[in-house]
């Protein structure tokens, strides 16, 4: 098992190198350069040269790349071109907890609801409630996050005032867990919605298949109660395809977080990414692309390991 994990991590290294290369060069060929945005067009030419030297913008491209990667490995993502040159790592650390909270909450919501609904539907396929949930999850799949977010803000936050319209906490109130959760519910639910729909569909179809297997009949013939048959004998087999789906859906979780954070004024990495894109703050953009890629790669390794843990037939 340990050697499987190590092997899995080693094979991810070339992938990560590729990711740094691609994100570096995409930013290089993007139109506009930071000097044009940052500087007063009337700036003295010698000041411009100083700026370029300070940030190494005149080095050959591959030198710039190696410098960047080398620093990054040591945890130095460079400094923002704006905001008085704040270190990028500091900006990220300020926002990271908010994004992690949002993603974990969304994932938990998606998993719990999809398992409950998926199993419920699978035990009574083609019933009225199954059709109802099926329709619901197709709607969930088809609805864009930003639209769902805006609608929920309009109805449940603005009109009904059940939830705040955005942010992580009330600015003028002291810290309270309940206040945090209250702010978290809407954005987490919106971020969860698309994945929840996909997980539900998969849980349902895989549970329908599993519940028809011979070993389920054996479990019933042993005199186990139906809850035990479904959750102990059925769900563990039914979850394997869903775990794979979890690994595959991480990119959409990261992308979805950017939009949801924007809609709900959630000060996380996603909204940082969008802000930085508007201002062409390259060090921040590049750091975020690399970070999210690393996150997705790690997530997939975790999904593979989980898969192997659930299914003993998989040889490492």
């Amino acid at each position: 098992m340990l050697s499987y994990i190590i092997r899995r991590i080693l094979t991810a290294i070339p992938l990560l190198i590729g990711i740094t290369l691609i994100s570096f060069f995409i930013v290089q060929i993007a139109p506009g350069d930071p000097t044009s945005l940052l500087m007063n067009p009337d700036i003295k030419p010698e000041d411009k040269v100083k700026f370029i030297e300070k940030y190494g913008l005149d080095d050959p491209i591959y030198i710039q790349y190696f410098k960047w990667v080398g620093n990054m490995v040591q945890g130095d993502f460079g400094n923002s071109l704006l905001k008085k040159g704040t270190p990028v790592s500091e900006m990220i650390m300020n926002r990271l907890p908010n994004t992690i909270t949002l993603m974990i909450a969304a994932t938990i919501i998606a998993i719990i609801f999809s398992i409950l609904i998926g199993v419920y539907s699978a035990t009574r396929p083609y019933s009225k409630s199954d059709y109802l949930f099926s329709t619901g999850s197709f709607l969930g799949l088809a609805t864009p996050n930003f639209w769902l977010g805006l609608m929920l803000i309009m109805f449940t936050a603005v009109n009904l005032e059940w939830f705040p319209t955005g942010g992580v906490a009330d600015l003028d109130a002291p810290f309270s867990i309940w206040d945090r959760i209250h702010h978290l519910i809407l954005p987490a639910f919106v971020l969860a919605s698309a994945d929840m729909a996909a997980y539900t569909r998969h849980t349902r179809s895989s549970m329908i298949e599993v519940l028809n297997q011979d070993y389920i009949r054996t479990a019933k013939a042993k005199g186990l109660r139906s809850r035990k048959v479904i959750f102990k004998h059925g769900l563990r087999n039914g979850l394997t395809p869903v775990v794979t789906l979890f690994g595959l859906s991480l990119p959409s979780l990261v992308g979805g977080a950017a939009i949801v954070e924007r809609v709900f004024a959630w000060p996380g990495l996603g909204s940082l990414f969008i802000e930085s894109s508007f201002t062409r703050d390259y060090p921040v953009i590049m750091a975020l692309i690399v970070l999210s890629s690393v996150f997705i790669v790690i997530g997939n390794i975790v999904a593979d390991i989980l898969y192997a843990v659930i299914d003993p037939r998989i040889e490492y």
Partner: protein
Amino acid sequence: MLMSALLEVKNLKTHFFKKKQVIPAVDGMDLTIKKGETVALVGESGSGKSMTSLSIMRLVPSPGGKIVDGQIMYDGKDLLTISENDMVDIRGNDISMIFQEPMTSLNPVLTIGDQITETLIAHQKLSQREAKKRAVELLEMVGFSRAKAILNDYPHRLSGGMRQRVMIAIAMSCNPKLLIADEPTTALDVTIQAQILDLMKDLSNKFDTSILLITHDLGVVSEVADRVIVMYCGQVVEESSVNDIFENALHPYTQGLINSVPSIDDDIDRLESIEGNVPTPDQFPTGCRFAPRCPKAFDKCSLHMPTLKKIDERSIRCFLYEEEQS
């Protein structure tokens, strides 16, 4: 030798409902199993043997299948009218079952130990520890020498024969009164088949467990069964002791079955087999269901259905023997 009935199935009807079509898979089945006795239920594939046994367990595939009529008397109760909760207490405890497909009948993601102990914990209220100890004994009883090590193994590490032994260990774990074995050796190698049958026979003698052995292989029957019930198209066509069946089969269908059993001195070409196929339940003939394939059929056969008549210790469903009686 007077033995009391352990299980009595009367006029059992298990039908499937597909798109307004009614499929009478089991259609008026009668069956009695006495204490300690091994009864063989034989018949070609598709005659309703599995559905009969699943009906006794109340595990007919649903939606689709349904028990529409009949009684299954066990221990003074009709199993078809008791609550699902009471039925759960009977399954695996009083009546247990093993299946044809040892490769798929065990859960691939749970250890052998877990799959044995959960039955003991559910029915005998044993603690985890006691159940584990008992599981080791059970595995030794069905012939594992490294029983302790097997506990932590997963099913995919065992061969088909070993898995069937595990299934038997699970089925026997609560000392059931009745073991239903649905073609337990069909999927196994010939040498393994004999071992598994011996094991079942041994255990049933030791624990006084009755066996309902379902098979389409008459060779198996002669070795282990006391009594034989021949099934065709969802009904009993003949029932008698094992000796009578092999020495003097009465029903033309049974005769056909016996003539098609290969024996060592027979050569394959001379093997007779029954012409035609078992009709599917939606195409049962109106008269005797065997009439289209019966070499002895006469006019009456395709018009009326013969009833099951008792002759001495045997029962038979055929017009050839009805005249004699009246």
